[in-house]
Protein backbone atom coordinates (compact mmCIF):
# COMPACT_ATOMS: atom_id res chain seq x y z
CA UNK A 1 0.00 0.00 0.00
CA UNK A 2 2.81 2.33 1.05
CA UNK A 3 4.76 1.44 -2.05
CA UNK A 4 1.76 2.10 -4.25
CA UNK A 5 1.34 5.59 -2.83
CA UNK A 6 5.06 6.24 -3.29
CA UNK A 7 4.70 5.41 -6.96
CA UNK A 8 1.80 7.80 -7.42
CA UNK A 9 3.77 10.58 -5.75
CA UNK A 10 6.80 9.81 -7.93
CA UNK A 11 4.95 9.84 -11.25
CA UNK A 12 2.99 12.94 -10.26
CA UNK A 13 6.28 14.64 -9.41
CA UNK A 14 7.77 13.62 -12.74
CA UNK A 15 4.73 14.94 -14.62
CA UNK A 16 4.79 18.25 -12.73
CA UNK A 17 8.51 18.56 -13.48
CA UNK A 18 8.03 18.01 -17.22
CA UNK A 19 5.05 20.39 -17.40
CA UNK A 20 7.06 23.01 -15.54
CA UNK A 21 9.97 22.59 -17.95
CA UNK A 22 7.66 22.77 -20.96
CA UNK A 23 5.89 25.91 -19.77
CA UNK A 24 9.24 27.49 -18.91
CA UNK A 25 10.32 27.05 -22.52
CA UNK A 26 7.14 28.80 -23.63
CA UNK A 27 7.26 31.71 -21.16
CA UNK A 28 10.90 32.65 -20.59
CA UNK A 29 12.32 34.56 -23.56
CA UNK A 30 15.98 34.81 -22.55
CA UNK A 31 17.96 31.82 -23.86
CA UNK A 32 20.69 31.80 -21.23
CA UNK A 33 18.84 29.89 -18.47
CA UNK A 34 18.25 27.09 -20.95
CA UNK A 35 21.90 27.01 -21.94
CA UNK A 36 22.98 26.67 -18.31
CA UNK A 37 20.06 24.45 -17.34
CA UNK A 38 20.78 22.00 -20.14
CA UNK A 39 24.23 21.29 -18.69
CA UNK A 40 22.81 20.69 -15.20
CA UNK A 41 20.14 18.33 -16.59
CA UNK A 42 22.82 16.50 -18.53
CA UNK A 43 24.83 16.00 -15.36
CA UNK A 44 21.76 14.67 -13.52
CA UNK A 45 21.23 12.11 -16.27
CA UNK A 46 24.91 11.13 -16.24
CA UNK A 47 25.15 10.85 -12.45
CA UNK A 48 21.97 8.78 -12.18
CA UNK A 49 23.07 6.52 -15.03
CA UNK A 50 26.54 6.13 -13.54
CA UNK A 51 25.20 5.11 -10.15
CA UNK A 52 23.29 2.13 -11.61
CA UNK A 53 26.60 0.32 -12.09
CA UNK A 54 28.90 2.40 -9.86
CA UNK A 55 26.54 2.82 -6.93
CA UNK A 56 24.21 -0.17 -6.78
CA UNK A 57 26.82 -2.69 -7.93
CA UNK A 58 29.92 -0.94 -6.57
CA UNK A 59 31.86 -1.16 -9.82
CA UNK A 60 33.64 2.19 -10.19
CA UNK A 61 33.34 3.05 -13.85
CA UNK A 62 35.92 5.60 -15.05
CA UNK A 63 34.62 5.24 -18.60
CA UNK A 64 31.62 7.57 -18.52
CA UNK A 65 33.45 9.60 -21.14
CA UNK A 66 33.63 6.55 -23.42
CA UNK A 67 29.86 6.10 -23.39
CA UNK A 68 29.26 9.84 -23.59
CA UNK A 69 31.58 10.25 -26.56
CA UNK A 70 30.06 7.23 -28.29
CA UNK A 71 26.65 8.85 -27.85
CA UNK A 72 27.90 12.13 -29.32
CA UNK A 73 29.54 10.46 -32.29
CA UNK A 74 26.65 8.09 -32.99
CA UNK A 75 24.44 11.16 -33.28
CA UNK A 76 26.99 13.02 -35.41
CA UNK A 77 27.61 10.13 -37.80
CA UNK A 78 23.92 9.40 -38.18
CA UNK A 79 23.07 13.06 -38.73
CA UNK A 80 25.81 13.49 -41.29
CA UNK A 81 24.94 10.31 -43.16
CA UNK A 82 21.15 10.51 -43.20
CA UNK A 83 20.09 13.78 -41.57
CA UNK A 84 18.05 11.77 -39.07
CA UNK A 85 15.97 13.76 -36.57
CA UNK A 86 17.06 14.20 -32.96
CA UNK A 87 14.79 11.47 -31.56
CA UNK A 88 16.29 8.90 -33.91
CA UNK A 89 19.81 10.07 -33.02
CA UNK A 90 19.14 9.62 -29.32
CA UNK A 91 17.51 6.22 -29.80
CA UNK A 92 20.42 5.08 -31.94
CA UNK A 93 22.90 6.36 -29.35
CA UNK A 94 21.08 4.41 -26.64
CA UNK A 95 21.22 1.23 -28.72
CA UNK A 96 24.92 1.68 -29.49
CA UNK A 97 25.61 2.54 -25.84
CA UNK A 98 23.80 -0.59 -24.73
CA UNK A 99 25.75 -2.73 -27.19
CA UNK A 100 28.98 -1.16 -26.00
CA UNK A 101 27.92 -1.77 -22.40
CA UNK A 102 27.36 -5.44 -23.25
CA UNK A 103 30.81 -5.72 -24.84
CA UNK A 104 32.53 -3.81 -22.05
CA UNK A 105 30.72 -5.88 -19.48
CA UNK A 106 31.70 -9.19 -21.03
CA UNK A 107 35.31 -8.06 -21.28
CA UNK A 108 35.77 -6.36 -17.93
CA UNK A 109 33.13 -7.32 -15.38
CA UNK A 110 35.00 -10.41 -14.28
CA UNK A 111 37.67 -8.08 -12.94
CA UNK A 112 37.40 -6.71 -9.45
CA UNK A 113 37.83 -3.23 -8.09
CA UNK A 114 40.67 -1.21 -9.50
CA UNK A 115 41.22 -3.53 -12.48
CA UNK A 116 37.72 -2.86 -13.72
CA UNK A 117 38.21 0.89 -13.26
CA UNK A 118 41.49 0.97 -15.14
CA UNK A 119 40.03 -1.20 -17.90
CA UNK A 120 37.20 1.30 -18.42
CA UNK A 121 39.69 4.17 -18.77
CA UNK A 122 41.54 2.03 -21.28
CA UNK A 123 38.40 1.49 -23.35
CA UNK A 124 37.69 5.22 -23.39
CA UNK A 125 41.15 6.02 -24.72
CA UNK A 126 41.01 3.27 -27.34
CA UNK A 127 37.62 4.37 -28.66
CA UNK A 128 38.76 7.99 -28.68
CA UNK A 129 41.81 7.01 -30.72
CA UNK A 130 39.59 5.26 -33.26
CA UNK A 131 37.32 8.29 -33.57
CA UNK A 132 40.38 10.53 -33.98
CA UNK A 133 41.38 8.44 -36.98
CA UNK A 134 37.86 8.31 -38.42
CA UNK A 135 37.81 10.78 -41.32
CA UNK A 136 34.05 10.72 -41.95
CA UNK A 137 33.30 12.55 -38.68
CA UNK A 138 36.18 14.99 -38.98
CA UNK A 139 39.01 13.11 -37.25
CA UNK A 140 40.97 14.89 -34.55
CA UNK A 141 40.02 18.35 -35.84
CA UNK A 142 36.32 17.87 -35.10
CA UNK A 143 33.22 18.64 -37.14
CA UNK A 144 30.83 21.59 -37.43
CA UNK A 145 27.14 20.83 -37.23
CA UNK A 146 24.33 22.81 -38.80
CA UNK A 147 21.21 22.57 -36.65
CA UNK A 148 18.04 21.68 -38.55
CA UNK A 149 15.03 24.01 -38.17
CA UNK A 150 13.33 23.79 -34.78
CA UNK A 151 10.09 21.87 -34.22
CA UNK A 152 6.62 23.19 -33.45
CA UNK A 153 5.98 24.21 -29.81
CA UNK A 154 9.52 25.55 -29.33
CA UNK A 155 10.85 28.86 -30.68
CA UNK A 156 14.55 28.03 -30.33
CA UNK A 157 16.64 24.90 -30.66
CA UNK A 158 18.28 25.29 -27.26
CA UNK A 159 14.88 25.34 -25.56
CA UNK A 160 13.94 22.16 -27.38
CA UNK A 161 17.19 20.50 -26.30
CA UNK A 162 16.50 21.60 -22.75
CA UNK A 163 13.12 19.86 -22.84
CA UNK A 164 14.58 16.75 -24.47
CA UNK A 165 17.26 16.50 -21.81
CA UNK A 166 14.61 16.94 -19.08
CA UNK A 167 12.77 14.01 -20.64
CA UNK A 168 15.97 11.95 -20.61
CA UNK A 169 16.44 12.79 -16.93
CA UNK A 170 12.93 11.54 -16.14
CA UNK A 171 13.61 8.33 -18.08
CA UNK A 172 16.96 7.78 -16.34
CA UNK A 173 15.54 8.44 -12.89
CA UNK A 174 12.53 6.20 -13.36
CA UNK A 175 14.71 3.35 -14.62
CA UNK A 176 17.11 3.82 -11.69
CA UNK A 177 14.15 3.88 -9.31
CA UNK A 178 12.69 0.75 -10.84
CA UNK A 179 16.02 -1.10 -10.58
CA UNK A 180 16.54 -0.01 -7.00
CA UNK A 181 13.20 -1.45 -5.92
CA UNK A 182 13.36 -4.60 -8.03
CA UNK A 183 15.09 -7.96 -7.72
CA UNK A 184 17.88 -6.60 -9.93
CA UNK A 185 18.66 -3.85 -7.44
CA UNK A 186 18.67 -6.19 -4.47
CA UNK A 187 20.91 -8.61 -6.35
CA UNK A 188 23.32 -5.81 -7.25
CA UNK A 189 23.40 -4.64 -3.66
CA UNK A 190 24.13 -8.18 -2.49
CA UNK A 191 27.01 -8.60 -4.90
CA UNK A 192 28.40 -5.21 -3.96
CA UNK A 193 28.55 -6.18 -0.30
CA UNK A 194 30.04 -9.61 -0.93
CA UNK A 195 30.26 -10.97 -4.43
CA UNK A 196 31.30 -14.47 -3.43
CA UNK A 197 28.52 -14.83 -0.87
CA UNK A 198 25.99 -13.53 -3.40
CA UNK A 199 27.18 -16.01 -6.00
CA UNK A 200 26.96 -18.84 -3.48
CA UNK A 201 23.40 -18.02 -2.53
CA UNK A 202 22.32 -18.20 -6.16
CA UNK A 203 22.44 -14.55 -7.26
CA UNK A 204 23.35 -14.60 -10.98
CA UNK A 205 26.09 -12.00 -10.44
CA UNK A 206 27.59 -11.81 -13.92
CA UNK A 207 24.17 -11.55 -15.55
CA UNK A 208 23.07 -8.79 -13.18
CA UNK A 209 26.31 -6.85 -13.68
CA UNK A 210 25.90 -7.16 -17.44
CA UNK A 211 22.35 -5.83 -17.26
CA UNK A 212 23.47 -2.94 -15.05
CA UNK A 213 26.37 -2.12 -17.38
CA UNK A 214 24.09 -2.19 -20.47
CA UNK A 215 21.42 0.04 -18.92
CA UNK A 216 23.99 2.43 -17.49
CA UNK A 217 25.79 2.60 -20.84
CA UNK A 218 22.60 3.14 -22.83
CA UNK A 219 21.50 5.99 -20.56
CA UNK A 220 24.90 7.71 -20.62
CA UNK A 221 25.11 7.50 -24.42
CA UNK A 222 21.55 8.78 -24.76
CA UNK A 223 22.35 11.74 -22.50
CA UNK A 224 25.41 12.48 -24.62
CA UNK A 225 23.65 12.29 -27.99
CA UNK A 226 22.15 15.82 -28.01
CA UNK A 227 25.49 17.38 -27.01
CA UNK A 228 26.63 17.78 -30.61
CA UNK A 229 23.47 19.71 -31.48
CA UNK A 230 23.84 21.75 -28.30
CA UNK A 231 27.42 22.82 -29.09
CA UNK A 232 26.90 22.78 -32.89
CA UNK A 233 30.31 21.16 -32.93
CA UNK A 234 31.97 17.92 -31.90
CA UNK A 235 35.60 16.90 -31.51
CA UNK A 236 37.11 13.76 -29.97
CA UNK A 237 39.08 15.37 -27.17
CA UNK A 238 36.09 17.22 -25.76
CA UNK A 239 33.51 14.49 -26.43
CA UNK A 240 35.73 11.93 -24.71
CA UNK A 241 36.93 14.31 -22.01
CA UNK A 242 37.81 12.57 -18.76
CA UNK A 243 36.06 15.37 -16.87
CA UNK A 244 32.71 13.73 -17.74
CA UNK A 245 33.89 10.67 -15.86
CA UNK A 246 35.06 12.56 -12.81
CA UNK A 247 31.89 14.68 -12.81
CA UNK A 248 29.49 11.75 -13.01
CA UNK A 249 31.42 9.81 -10.38
CA UNK A 250 31.83 12.79 -8.05
CA UNK A 251 28.20 13.90 -8.30
CA UNK A 252 26.89 10.40 -7.65
CA UNK A 253 29.22 9.73 -4.70
CA UNK A 254 28.70 13.19 -3.19
CA UNK A 255 24.94 12.80 -3.41
CA UNK A 256 25.06 9.26 -2.13
CA UNK A 257 24.39 6.09 -4.09
CA UNK A 258 22.07 4.17 -1.77
CA UNK A 259 18.99 5.84 -3.28
CA UNK A 260 18.26 7.33 -6.71
CA UNK A 261 17.68 10.76 -5.21
CA UNK A 262 21.36 10.94 -4.16
CA UNK A 263 22.91 11.40 -7.61
CA UNK A 264 20.09 13.83 -8.50
CA UNK A 265 20.86 15.98 -5.45
CA UNK A 266 24.61 15.75 -6.04
CA UNK A 267 24.27 16.74 -9.69
CA UNK A 268 21.96 19.66 -8.95
CA UNK A 269 24.21 20.94 -6.19
CA UNK A 270 27.52 20.54 -8.01
CA UNK A 271 26.11 21.36 -11.45
CA UNK A 272 24.69 24.69 -10.35
CA UNK A 273 27.83 25.53 -8.34
CA UNK A 274 29.83 24.77 -11.47
CA UNK A 275 27.63 26.98 -13.62
CA UNK A 276 28.07 29.85 -11.16
CA UNK A 277 31.82 29.34 -10.89
CA UNK A 278 32.27 29.01 -14.65
CA UNK A 279 30.60 32.38 -15.10
CA UNK A 280 32.24 34.17 -12.21
CA UNK A 281 35.73 32.66 -11.95
CA UNK A 282 37.10 30.07 -14.38
CA UNK A 283 36.52 26.54 -15.54
CA UNK A 284 39.72 25.32 -13.88
CA UNK A 285 38.56 26.38 -10.43
CA UNK A 286 35.42 24.50 -11.34
CA UNK A 287 37.18 21.16 -11.64
CA UNK A 288 39.22 21.98 -8.54
CA UNK A 289 36.06 22.48 -6.48
CA UNK A 290 34.67 19.23 -7.87
CA UNK A 291 37.84 17.33 -6.96
CA UNK A 292 38.08 18.77 -3.46
CA UNK A 293 34.40 18.11 -2.77
CA UNK A 294 34.82 14.52 -3.99
CA UNK A 295 37.80 13.88 -1.72
CA UNK A 296 36.15 15.55 1.28
CA UNK A 297 32.94 13.57 0.89
CA UNK A 298 34.68 10.27 0.25
CA UNK A 299 36.78 10.76 3.37
CA UNK A 300 34.27 12.46 5.66
CA UNK A 301 30.76 11.49 4.53
CA UNK A 302 30.98 8.08 2.84
CA UNK A 303 27.22 7.86 2.28
CA UNK A 304 27.03 11.28 0.67
CA UNK A 305 24.41 13.94 1.19
CA UNK A 306 21.56 11.49 1.72
CA UNK A 307 23.66 9.75 4.35
CA UNK A 308 23.96 13.07 6.18
CA UNK A 309 20.26 13.85 5.79
CA UNK A 310 18.84 10.46 6.67
CA UNK A 311 20.97 8.27 8.95
CA UNK A 312 18.79 5.27 8.11
CA UNK A 313 20.53 4.91 4.74
CA UNK A 314 23.79 4.74 6.57
CA UNK A 315 22.45 1.71 8.41
CA UNK A 316 20.94 0.06 5.40
CA UNK A 317 23.71 0.44 2.85
CA UNK A 318 26.83 0.34 4.97
CA UNK A 319 26.35 -2.87 6.90
CA UNK A 320 28.04 -1.43 9.97
CA UNK A 321 26.52 1.73 11.49
Amino acid at each position, binding site marked *: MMKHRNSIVFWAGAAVFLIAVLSMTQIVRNEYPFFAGYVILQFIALAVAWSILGGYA*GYVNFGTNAFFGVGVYTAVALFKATGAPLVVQIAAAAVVGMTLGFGVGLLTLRMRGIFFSIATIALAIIIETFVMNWRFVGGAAGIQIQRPPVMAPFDSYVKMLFFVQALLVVIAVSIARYIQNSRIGRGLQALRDDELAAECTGVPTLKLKLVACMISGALISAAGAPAAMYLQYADPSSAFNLSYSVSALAMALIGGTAHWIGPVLGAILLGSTQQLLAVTISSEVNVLVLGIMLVLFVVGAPKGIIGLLRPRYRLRA*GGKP
Partner: protein
Amino acid sequence: MDLLLGAVVLGVLLGCFYAAVSVGLSVSFGLLDVPHVAHPAFLVLASYGVYQLNESYDIDPLLAGLAITPLFFLFGLLAYRVYYETFERRGSDAAVRGIAFFFGIAFIIEVLIILQFGVDQRSVSATYIGKSWRFGEFRIPIRQLVAFAVALALTLLLAVYLSKTFMGRAIRAVAQDEEALRLMGANPVRIKQFAFGIATAVLGIAGALLIIVAPVEPTLDRAYIGRTFCVVVMAGLGSISGTLIAAIILGVAESIVLTLFGASWAPAISFAMLLGVLAVRPQGLLGR
Protein backbone atom coordinates in the same frame (compact mmCIF):
# COMPACT_ATOMS: atom_id res chain seq x y z
CA MET B 1 64.49 -2.81 -42.19
CA ASP B 2 66.89 -0.18 -40.85
CA LEU B 3 63.85 1.84 -39.90
CA LEU B 4 62.46 -1.05 -37.90
CA LEU B 5 65.80 -1.72 -36.21
CA GLY B 6 66.01 1.95 -35.23
CA ALA B 7 62.49 1.72 -33.82
CA VAL B 8 63.43 -1.31 -31.74
CA VAL B 9 66.55 0.38 -30.35
CA LEU B 10 64.62 3.53 -29.46
CA GLY B 11 61.87 1.31 -28.02
CA VAL B 12 64.30 -0.38 -25.64
CA LEU B 13 65.55 3.01 -24.46
CA LEU B 14 61.98 4.21 -24.04
CA GLY B 15 61.07 0.98 -22.25
CA CYS B 16 63.70 1.44 -19.56
CA PHE B 17 62.36 4.93 -19.02
CA TYR B 18 58.85 3.47 -18.64
CA ALA B 19 60.24 1.04 -16.08
CA ALA B 20 61.54 3.96 -14.01
CA VAL B 21 58.18 5.77 -14.02
CA SER B 22 56.27 2.55 -13.25
CA VAL B 23 58.49 1.00 -10.60
CA GLY B 24 56.97 3.14 -7.84
CA LEU B 25 53.52 1.90 -8.78
CA SER B 26 54.88 -1.62 -8.77
CA VAL B 27 55.58 -1.14 -5.07
CA SER B 28 52.51 0.88 -4.07
CA PHE B 29 49.94 -1.02 -6.15
CA GLY B 30 51.74 -4.27 -6.83
CA LEU B 31 53.06 -4.97 -3.34
CA LEU B 32 50.81 -2.88 -1.09
CA ASP B 33 47.52 -3.25 -2.99
CA VAL B 34 46.79 0.48 -2.82
CA PRO B 35 44.61 1.49 -5.82
CA HIS B 36 47.00 4.32 -6.58
CA VAL B 37 45.37 5.94 -9.64
CA ALA B 38 47.07 9.21 -8.68
CA HIS B 39 50.55 7.76 -9.26
CA PRO B 40 50.91 9.38 -12.73
CA ALA B 41 49.63 12.68 -11.32
CA PHE B 42 52.33 12.55 -8.62
CA LEU B 43 54.81 11.86 -11.44
CA VAL B 44 53.77 14.93 -13.42
CA LEU B 45 53.83 16.99 -10.22
CA ALA B 46 57.45 15.92 -9.71
CA SER B 47 58.25 17.02 -13.26
CA TYR B 48 56.86 20.46 -12.55
CA GLY B 49 58.91 20.64 -9.36
CA VAL B 50 62.01 19.86 -11.40
CA TYR B 51 60.96 22.44 -13.98
CA GLN B 52 60.58 25.10 -11.29
CA LEU B 53 64.02 24.42 -9.82
CA ASN B 54 65.60 24.33 -13.27
CA GLU B 55 63.88 27.54 -14.34
CA SER B 56 64.57 29.66 -11.26
CA TYR B 57 67.98 28.39 -10.09
CA ASP B 58 69.30 26.77 -13.25
CA ILE B 59 69.86 23.45 -11.46
CA ASP B 60 70.50 20.39 -13.60
CA PRO B 61 67.18 18.49 -13.90
CA LEU B 62 68.63 15.26 -12.50
CA LEU B 63 70.01 17.06 -9.44
CA ALA B 64 66.70 18.86 -9.07
CA GLY B 65 64.95 15.49 -9.15
CA LEU B 66 67.27 14.25 -6.43
CA ALA B 67 66.58 17.40 -4.42
CA ILE B 68 62.82 16.91 -4.38
CA THR B 69 63.10 13.21 -3.55
CA PRO B 70 63.06 13.71 0.27
CA LEU B 71 60.02 15.96 -0.09
CA PHE B 72 58.23 13.30 -2.08
CA PHE B 73 59.18 10.72 0.52
CA LEU B 74 57.42 12.77 3.20
CA PHE B 75 54.51 13.40 0.84
CA GLY B 76 54.20 9.65 0.36
CA LEU B 77 54.22 8.97 4.12
CA LEU B 78 51.45 11.51 4.57
CA ALA B 79 49.39 10.22 1.64
CA TYR B 80 49.52 6.65 2.92
CA ARG B 81 48.63 7.71 6.45
CA VAL B 82 45.51 9.50 5.19
CA TYR B 83 44.60 6.56 2.97
CA TYR B 84 45.11 4.06 5.79
CA GLU B 85 43.17 5.98 8.42
CA THR B 86 40.19 6.71 6.18
CA PHE B 87 39.90 3.58 4.05
CA GLU B 88 42.09 0.59 4.71
CA ARG B 89 41.31 0.45 8.42
CA ARG B 90 37.57 0.59 7.87
CA GLY B 91 37.58 -2.29 5.41
CA SER B 92 34.54 -3.58 3.43
CA ASP B 93 33.04 -0.75 1.39
CA ALA B 94 36.32 1.16 1.47
CA ALA B 95 37.74 -0.17 -1.79
CA VAL B 96 35.28 1.72 -3.99
CA ARG B 97 35.85 4.94 -2.12
CA GLY B 98 39.62 4.47 -2.08
CA ILE B 99 39.63 4.42 -5.88
CA ALA B 100 37.44 7.52 -6.00
CA PHE B 101 39.72 9.17 -3.44
CA PHE B 102 42.86 8.76 -5.54
CA PHE B 103 40.97 9.73 -8.70
CA GLY B 104 39.92 12.96 -6.96
CA ILE B 105 43.48 13.61 -5.75
CA ALA B 106 44.77 13.16 -9.31
CA PHE B 107 42.31 15.74 -10.59
CA ILE B 108 43.15 18.20 -7.83
CA ILE B 109 46.86 17.96 -8.64
CA GLU B 110 46.14 18.40 -12.35
CA VAL B 111 44.12 21.56 -11.77
CA LEU B 112 46.59 23.01 -9.27
CA ILE B 113 49.33 22.60 -11.87
CA ILE B 114 47.16 24.32 -14.48
CA LEU B 115 46.44 27.21 -12.10
CA GLN B 116 50.12 27.62 -11.25
CA PHE B 117 51.84 26.95 -14.59
CA GLY B 118 49.12 27.25 -17.24
CA VAL B 119 48.27 24.67 -19.87
CA ASP B 120 51.34 25.24 -22.07
CA GLN B 121 54.05 22.65 -22.46
CA ARG B 122 57.12 23.11 -20.25
CA SER B 123 60.62 21.80 -20.75
CA VAL B 124 63.98 21.98 -18.99
CA SER B 125 67.38 23.05 -20.24
CA ALA B 126 70.58 21.06 -19.76
CA THR B 127 73.73 20.54 -21.78
CA TYR B 128 72.68 17.06 -22.93
CA ILE B 129 69.26 18.11 -24.18
CA GLY B 130 68.93 18.89 -27.87
CA LYS B 131 72.02 17.04 -29.10
CA SER B 132 72.07 13.59 -30.64
CA TRP B 133 74.43 10.84 -31.71
CA ARG B 134 74.44 9.65 -35.29
CA PHE B 135 74.87 6.02 -36.23
CA GLY B 136 74.86 6.04 -40.01
CA GLU B 137 71.17 6.09 -40.96
CA PHE B 138 69.47 6.87 -37.68
CA ARG B 139 70.28 9.08 -34.73
CA ILE B 140 69.66 8.72 -31.02
CA PRO B 141 68.94 11.84 -28.96
CA ILE B 142 71.36 12.06 -26.03
CA ARG B 143 68.45 12.94 -23.73
CA GLN B 144 67.06 9.47 -24.42
CA LEU B 145 70.39 7.87 -23.56
CA VAL B 146 70.67 9.83 -20.30
CA ALA B 147 67.13 8.90 -19.35
CA PHE B 148 67.82 5.28 -20.27
CA ALA B 149 70.95 5.04 -18.12
CA VAL B 150 69.44 6.75 -15.10
CA ALA B 151 66.19 4.80 -15.41
CA LEU B 152 68.00 1.48 -15.61
CA ALA B 153 70.14 2.37 -12.59
CA LEU B 154 67.10 3.48 -10.61
CA THR B 155 65.11 0.35 -11.36
CA LEU B 156 68.00 -2.00 -10.58
CA LEU B 157 68.80 -0.10 -7.39
CA LEU B 158 65.22 -0.48 -6.19
CA ALA B 159 65.24 -4.17 -7.11
CA VAL B 160 68.42 -4.70 -5.08
CA TYR B 161 66.99 -2.67 -2.20
CA LEU B 162 63.85 -4.80 -2.08
CA SER B 163 65.68 -8.13 -2.26
CA LYS B 164 68.86 -7.54 -0.26
CA THR B 165 68.26 -5.05 2.55
CA PHE B 166 66.40 -5.77 5.75
CA MET B 167 63.75 -3.11 5.16
CA GLY B 168 63.27 -4.20 1.57
CA ARG B 169 62.63 -7.78 2.66
CA ALA B 170 60.24 -6.51 5.31
CA ILE B 171 58.29 -4.72 2.59
CA ARG B 172 58.04 -7.90 0.55
CA ALA B 173 57.06 -9.80 3.66
CA VAL B 174 54.22 -7.42 4.41
CA ALA B 175 52.94 -7.94 0.88
CA GLN B 176 53.00 -11.71 1.31
CA ASP B 177 51.48 -12.14 4.74
CA GLU B 178 50.58 -9.16 6.85
CA GLU B 179 49.20 -11.26 9.68
CA ALA B 180 52.36 -13.32 10.06
CA LEU B 181 54.37 -10.12 10.30
CA ARG B 182 52.05 -8.83 12.98
CA LEU B 183 52.45 -12.06 14.95
CA MET B 184 56.23 -11.66 14.82
CA GLY B 185 55.94 -8.35 16.59
CA ALA B 186 56.43 -6.02 13.65
CA ASN B 187 54.00 -3.23 12.82
CA PRO B 188 52.80 -3.86 9.25
CA VAL B 189 51.23 -0.43 8.91
CA ARG B 190 54.51 1.34 9.57
CA ILE B 191 56.33 -0.86 7.10
CA LYS B 192 53.66 -0.21 4.48
CA GLN B 193 53.82 3.50 5.15
CA PHE B 194 57.57 3.46 4.70
CA ALA B 195 57.22 1.44 1.49
CA PHE B 196 54.68 3.92 0.13
CA GLY B 197 57.12 6.70 1.00
CA ILE B 198 59.86 4.94 -1.01
CA ALA B 199 57.47 4.39 -3.92
CA THR B 200 56.65 8.09 -3.95
CA ALA B 201 60.23 9.23 -3.42
CA VAL B 202 61.34 7.35 -6.55
CA LEU B 203 59.00 9.64 -8.47
CA GLY B 204 61.35 12.57 -7.82
CA ILE B 205 63.93 11.07 -10.17
CA ALA B 206 61.29 9.60 -12.46
CA GLY B 207 59.68 13.03 -12.82
CA ALA B 208 63.06 14.49 -13.77
CA LEU B 209 63.41 11.79 -16.45
CA LEU B 210 59.88 12.52 -17.71
CA ILE B 211 60.66 16.16 -18.38
CA ILE B 212 64.11 15.32 -19.79
CA VAL B 213 62.66 12.91 -22.34
CA ALA B 214 59.98 15.29 -23.60
CA PRO B 215 58.17 18.51 -22.61
CA VAL B 216 55.38 18.00 -20.06
CA GLU B 217 51.86 19.41 -19.83
CA PRO B 218 49.40 19.26 -16.90
CA THR B 219 47.17 16.55 -18.40
CA LEU B 220 50.08 14.25 -19.32
CA ASP B 221 49.20 12.01 -16.37
CA ARG B 222 46.21 10.63 -18.28
CA ALA B 223 48.41 8.98 -20.88
CA TYR B 224 50.63 7.61 -18.14
CA ILE B 225 47.73 5.96 -16.31
CA GLY B 226 47.69 3.51 -19.21
CA ARG B 227 51.45 3.13 -19.46
CA THR B 228 52.22 2.65 -15.77
CA PHE B 229 49.32 0.31 -15.05
CA CYS B 230 50.01 -1.62 -18.25
CA VAL B 231 53.60 -2.16 -17.17
CA VAL B 232 52.76 -3.10 -13.59
CA VAL B 233 49.95 -5.50 -14.51
CA MET B 234 51.90 -7.06 -17.37
CA ALA B 235 54.89 -7.50 -15.06
CA GLY B 236 52.88 -9.41 -12.52
CA LEU B 237 51.99 -7.43 -9.44
CA GLY B 238 55.00 -6.48 -7.37
CA SER B 239 57.66 -8.06 -9.54
CA ILE B 240 60.46 -5.54 -10.13
CA SER B 241 62.36 -7.60 -12.71
CA GLY B 242 59.02 -8.21 -14.44
CA THR B 243 58.50 -4.44 -14.48
CA LEU B 244 61.68 -3.97 -16.48
CA ILE B 245 60.75 -6.69 -19.00
CA ALA B 246 57.16 -5.47 -19.36
CA ALA B 247 58.27 -1.86 -19.75
CA ILE B 248 60.69 -2.80 -22.54
CA ILE B 249 57.93 -4.77 -24.31
CA LEU B 250 55.65 -1.73 -24.08
CA GLY B 251 58.39 0.65 -25.22
CA VAL B 252 59.26 -1.45 -28.27
CA ALA B 253 55.58 -1.91 -29.17
CA GLU B 254 54.90 1.83 -28.93
CA SER B 255 58.00 2.69 -30.90
CA ILE B 256 57.17 0.26 -33.72
CA VAL B 257 53.56 1.42 -33.98
CA LEU B 258 54.77 5.03 -34.00
CA THR B 259 57.12 4.29 -36.87
CA LEU B 260 54.71 2.22 -38.94
CA PHE B 261 51.32 3.88 -38.37
CA GLY B 262 52.03 7.37 -37.08
CA ALA B 263 51.69 9.21 -33.80
CA SER B 264 47.88 9.33 -33.69
CA TRP B 265 47.65 5.62 -32.81
CA ALA B 266 50.34 5.69 -30.11
CA PRO B 267 48.19 6.64 -27.08
CA ALA B 268 46.01 3.55 -27.48
CA ILE B 269 48.87 1.03 -27.48
CA SER B 270 49.47 0.87 -23.74
CA PHE B 271 45.75 0.73 -22.99
CA ALA B 272 45.15 -1.97 -25.59
CA MET B 273 48.02 -4.03 -24.19
CA LEU B 274 46.67 -3.52 -20.68
CA LEU B 275 43.25 -4.82 -21.73
CA GLY B 276 44.86 -7.72 -23.54
CA VAL B 277 46.90 -8.71 -20.49
CA LEU B 278 43.89 -8.38 -18.17
CA ALA B 279 41.81 -10.56 -20.48
CA VAL B 280 44.39 -13.24 -21.29
CA ARG B 281 46.86 -13.41 -18.43
CA PRO B 282 45.72 -11.32 -15.43
CA GLN B 283 48.55 -12.57 -13.22
CA GLY B 284 51.11 -11.01 -15.59
CA LEU B 285 54.39 -12.36 -16.88
CA LEU B 286 56.00 -13.07 -13.52
CA GLY B 287 52.94 -13.11 -11.29
CA ARG B 288 53.29 -13.70 -7.60
